[in-house]
Every structure is written in C-alpha cells, then in structure tokens.
C-alpha cells in the first residue's frame, strides 16, 4: 500500500481491497481497508473464502518487513512531541508525554496537532491520552475519538469498554466472556481475591489481574525508549574522475573509525560504494566476526577487493558506510598492555574470510547424530558456532570423505566383513577388522527407503585402516544387493 501510494496506484477508498500474507494453509488476510471491512472481510481469514464472499476484492501482498521498518522510523519521528516513545505491538506507538503537553498548548491541542501531522503523512491515527499505558491502549482502540482521560477517571472511562481492551489474548477473552465478564467494569467488580486465585499461574498476556492493575495505574509500566542507532559514513568527493580508489581508502577508514570512536561504536560490516561518472554504482562489502573500529584492520579487509571494481569512465564519489554497528567498550586486555588473543583470532578470521569467502573459513559444529556425515557440520567461522553436542563414544576415523566412495568387495559371509575390496583400482586384502557397528537411518530426516549401514573398521595387508560400510542387507526389500562404501580413514 505504501509503495502504491507513492507511485500513485493505490486503490480508491470506496473499493474493497485487502493485504495478504502467507499463512499455514495458503494466503490469509493481513489487513483490509474500510470498504472491505464493512463488506465483512475479516483479518486472519483465508483469501479464498473472502473471495467467495466478495468476488471483486482487490488483493495485494503485504510488505511486513517494510511495515516494521516504517513503524520504527515513525517511532523516532514522533519524538517531536515528547522525548520518550516506543513501539507497542506491530501497529501501535506509545508516547510518554508527561510534562510536554503545555508546549503544544494543552493536551487537546497536542492531540489535534498529532492527528494533523499524521494526516499530512497520509496516515490515519487513532489517538488517546491517558495516565497509564494500558488505559491509553484501550481508549485509542475502543474509546471515542481523541479521548482524554484525566488522573482520577480511569476506572470510569474504562468500565464500558470490552474485555479485549485489556491487552489480553483471544483465549482469555473467550474465557472471560464465558464467565459473563464482558466489560472491564464487570471484571473490576469481581472480588480481587477470587480473580487472583483463578489466574494465579497465568502469564502476563493472559492474566486479567495484572493487566487490570496496569491499566488502573496500580502497577507501574514505564516506557523504555530505545535510542536511534547513529549512522556512520565517510565520503570523498573528487574534482576529477579517477580509476583507482586505493589511495583514498586509508583516509576514509580513519575518518569512519574516528566517527565511531567518538560515539563508542564498532561495526561488523562495511559498505564501500563508488559512484561512476556515467551514473553507475559499484558496491563492495566486507564483514567481520567481531565489532571493530581499527582503521588498519578495516583497510586490510579491502586489500584484494578493490581490484574487482570496473572503473569504466572513472568515478568521482566514494562513500564508506558502517553497517551492523553496535556499542563497543574499550577494553584493556592485560595490565602490561599486551594484545588480546581472541582479538587476534577474530582478525585472522576476518582477513581470511575477506580473501577466500565465508564458506572457505569454517569451524566444526558437532551435532548429536549417529549418522557420521551429520555429526559434524562445517559452519562459517565469521558467524561462529557454539554447539557443544556430545560426541558419539564409539571410535571414529580422523578423516571422513565428503562423499562415500563405492568399492567392489569379496566376502565370505554376506553379513560379515569383506575379505578384500577394490578401492580406486587398488586391491586391499583385509587382515583384521572390528565391527559391525550398525547405524540405522534417522527416519525423521531420511527419505523413506533409506537403508541401514553396517560399519566396519578394517585394516588391510599393508596396515592402512579404513572405515567401510555396507548399505543395507540382503533381502531387506529396499533395493537389490547391498553396496559397500569407503567412508573414512583411521590413523
């Protein structure tokens, strides 16, 4: 809708339109306009059902992440009226206007100003003002237009509102309705002791006692107002187009790091953008495993990447942006002033990753599985892994082939170990063996029909120790004769 409003293709208000999102069983209605709502289209209903109800319903996909981002932006925008604001669910904002209403000529004037400002943005807002978060939430959604609630009249204003207005989930609202408690007033009349006894173990969003206390101001619910993340950007404008950004990089990195240091921030990603004279842009990004603001280190990460830029007719603007910034403490690792070893390792990871790619530099992540190739997974060292699964107690090889290699075998007994096998065109005579160790397929992962494996540790005539397995059994009904594979090597 937002995009369509910008491009001027938004549907008119009097035609029913709905935004849809992917549900579990096909698309569901995410939100509707007024015309559709009046025609009976409900949120959360399936699109096919609603199309049957209203064949000319216009349906567009919702941009949920975009909406979330826009809401975050809006949260910072509303700080023009008061210094504290926070997001309240996916569709609400809460502002702590204590002490700032007189700047706008009183509470009523401030609400009118807010509504006007929102409408210039093209947004409709339902606004209410109350001494508590809960009461403001209820009045904005279920109260009259621009309702203002003074300190002493919360109970009186809230009592005719339905129980949903207490920020309870659907299950609890249904339960209260079955108990005959349809309004907040009815709920407030119930003796507190019996209500507490009934909901003693309920969580916050299903506990009417706590919610009622919050709305009435008996329990404090302060607004925790997040700070806007500062953006860090360094740029160089050039009088004449150039072909190689390398000489400008040290200054750009230093400027960016100075900016971040001044505010106590570090970044995990860097974006270098060059703007060509012909309007083209080229962008390079590098990532780090821990936050950093060391200009030499950042510069090093770009070392081999700058050659990849196609200069074309040259470029005249270079910008360097810091992304994924986070507050970073300055730490002294040792009293003597020595360097920290973990920092060293993360720098090494950054350097190698910048050079060879995320997948090339990896650390093992062990998982609790008996299937050998699932027990160990290599994950990029840049993101780190802290899986600490218990490893299987049985003996395992020190090398594992990425793909098991099929071998031709000669065996004495079908269920026993092979007498000899041919692997990579070489015949290995089995001198000794240990096993079998049977590893059954994991039915919750594997396709139906996957065969079990019998692993043997075998030693050939020359003393080389292999881990080989037979896939399946004779006559297990899952394919023909079992096949044999080499899967790993022991020391």
């Amino acid at each position, binding site marked *: 809708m937002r995009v369509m409003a910008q491009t001027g293709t938004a549907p008119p208000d009097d035609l029913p339109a709905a935004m849809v999102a992917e549900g579990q069983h096909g698309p569901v209605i995410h939100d509707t306009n007024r015309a559709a709502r009046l025609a009976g289209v409900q949120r959360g209903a399936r699109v096919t059902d609603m199309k049957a109800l209203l064949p000319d319903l216009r349906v567009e996909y919702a941009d949920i992440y975009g909406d979330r981002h826009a809401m975050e932006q809006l949260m910072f925008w509303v700080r023009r009226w008061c210094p504290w604001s926070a997001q309240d669910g996916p569709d609400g904002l809460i502002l702590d206007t204590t002490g700032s209403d007189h700047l706008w000529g009183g509470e009523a004037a401030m609400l009118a100003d807010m509504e006007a400002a929102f409408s210039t943005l093209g947004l409709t807002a339902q606004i209410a003002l109350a001494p508590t978060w809960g009461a403001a939430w209820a009045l904005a959604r279920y109260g009259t237009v621009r309702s203002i609630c003074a300190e002493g009249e919360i109970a009186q204003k809230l009592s005719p509102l339905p129980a949903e207005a207490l920020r309870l989930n659907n299950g609890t609202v249904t339960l209260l309705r079955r108990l005959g408690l349809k309004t907040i007033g009815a709920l407030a009349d119930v003796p507190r002791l019996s209500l507490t006894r009934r909901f003693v173990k309920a969580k916050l969003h299903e506990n009417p006692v706590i919610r009622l206390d919050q709305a009435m101001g008996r329990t404090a619910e302060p607004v925790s107002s997040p700070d806007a993340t500062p953006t860090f950007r360094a740029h160089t404008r050039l009088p004449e187009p150039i072909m190689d950004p390398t000489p400008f990089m040290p200054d750009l990195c230093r400027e960016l790091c100075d900016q971040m240091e001044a505010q106590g921030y570090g970044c995990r990603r860097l974006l270098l953008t060059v703007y060509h004279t012909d309007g083209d842009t080229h962008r390079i990004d590098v990532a780090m495993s821990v936050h950093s603001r060391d200009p030499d280190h950042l510069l090093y990460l770009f070392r081999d990447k700058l050659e990849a830029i196609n200069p074309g007719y040259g470029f005249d603007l270079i910008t360097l942006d810091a992304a994924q910034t986070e507050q970073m403490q300055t730490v002294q690792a040792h009293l003597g002033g020595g360097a920290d070893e973990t920092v060293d390792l993360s720098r090494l990871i950054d350097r*190698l990753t910048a050079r060879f790619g995320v997948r090339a530099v990896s650390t093992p992540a062990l998982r609790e599985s008996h299937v050998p190739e699932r027990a160990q997974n290599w994950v990029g060292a840049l993101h780190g892994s802290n899986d600490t699964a218990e490893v299987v107690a049985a003996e395992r090889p*020190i090398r594992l082939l990425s793909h098991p290699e099929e071998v031709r075998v000669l065996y004495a007994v079908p269920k026993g170990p092979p007498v000899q096998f041919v692997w990579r065109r070489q015949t290995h005579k089995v001198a*000794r063996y*240990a096993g079998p160790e049977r590893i059954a397929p994991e039915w919750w992962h594997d396709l139906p029909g996957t065969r079990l494996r019998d692993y043997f540790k075998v030693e050939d005539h020359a*003393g080389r120790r292999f881990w080989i397995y037979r896939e399946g059994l004779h006559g297990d009904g899952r394919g023909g004769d079992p096949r044999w594979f080499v899967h*790993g090597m022991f020391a």
Partner: protein
Amino acid sequence: MSYLAPSKRLSSQTRLSLRSIGAQKVLSDVFTQTAADAAAVGFVLAHLPRDAGTVLWAQDRLSAKETGQPYMPGIGPAQSVMRVAVSRPSDVLVTMEDALRCKAVSAVIGEIWGDPPTLDFTATKRLALRAEAHGVPCWLIRRAAHPNLSAARNRWRIASLPSAAHPHDAQAPGDPRWQVELFRSRAAQPGTWAVRYDRATGRLDFSAASVDGAVDARDGADRHSATR
C-alpha cells in the same frame, strides 16, 4: 662390559631428542607413502599441543577431494580446529603464512597435493622463518609429492604398519603403528623407527624399526598365536 655403556647412552639420547623433535616449533614436512593414508595426519595430530588454542588447518581442493576432511568426532573435542578450504596450493601457503603471525593459533597444518611450482624453496623458507620467529609449530602434509628442495627443519616420511594387538579383541586392529622415517633434520640424527601411538594416553613410543623380515611378519599377527 665397557663397550656396552656408550651405545646405551647414545640410544637414550636419540630417544629423548626424538620426543622433542616433534614438539619443536619449526616447519616440518610430512610425506605419505600412499596418498589416502591417514597415518601422516595421525602422526601430526599426536604432536599437537592439547588444549592450547586453535589449530588452523588449511587444505587445497585436491587434498580435500582425495583424502576427505578432518573429522572432529574422531580427533576429539579437546582440539579446536579452524579449517580453511581453498582451491589453489598458493592459497594454502598464503593462509599458513598469515596464520603463523597470529598469537591465538597454537599450530598450523597445511595439506598440499602433488608438487605445485609455487611450493618451491623460497616458499618453504618463508614458512620456516616465520614459524621460528613466532614460535608456532607448522606442519606441511604432502601427498603424491616428491621430497624436493625444501627449507623444512624436519622432514618425515610416514607409512602405516599393521597395528598393535587389541587388548580385548584378537580380531580387531588395536593402537595404530606407523613406520616413521626422519630423512632430514637439523636437530637429530636421521633414522627410521616403528612408532606406536598410545591412544589412551596420547603418547608416542619410538622403537627401532626391525630389519629382520621374520620378526616383521609377526608384527600385528599375534592373533594367530592367540587362536592356536
């Protein structure tokens, strides 16, 4: 009796130095007799310091394809490993050189397949000097390769031997045994040994390699006498 004493002392000296050779913080290269033999990897792993820090393990594409990847459930959780899988041998050398500068790395292992032209005397000299300057043990595992000119301080050639007897199962292979040849070294006398790796304690037992064929054939074939 007097002629026995010097030889005894000599042998104890060699044994002592053999233990410490592997623990030296220098560049060593290890050649394998057959390409897909994990004996060399086992030998290198036996020399790594335990619980000391991250081991950087660089492999080129052919090494990973032909001989697989390190498998941590078998190596043990005590060793923390960071693997760098690159395509070219020159990238392995660059990675090893970069990692040797890093203080948090306790050892560097590189695997290079064949005799690439980039792996010349200069490249090994760089690695050797850097390993000594930073005091990090550096191992270069070379498969399907010729032991041509190299600046490695210790050069080993390793092959599998039939394993020691299994304490509980006469049929099964026991502790691994390797034939280890030190064919060039600055610190010790070159020689050939049969090495048994004790998996329970993680120690290496060097013993003189037998030249007697009759004894050799009996090695690891104790089960025959046991079953008879």
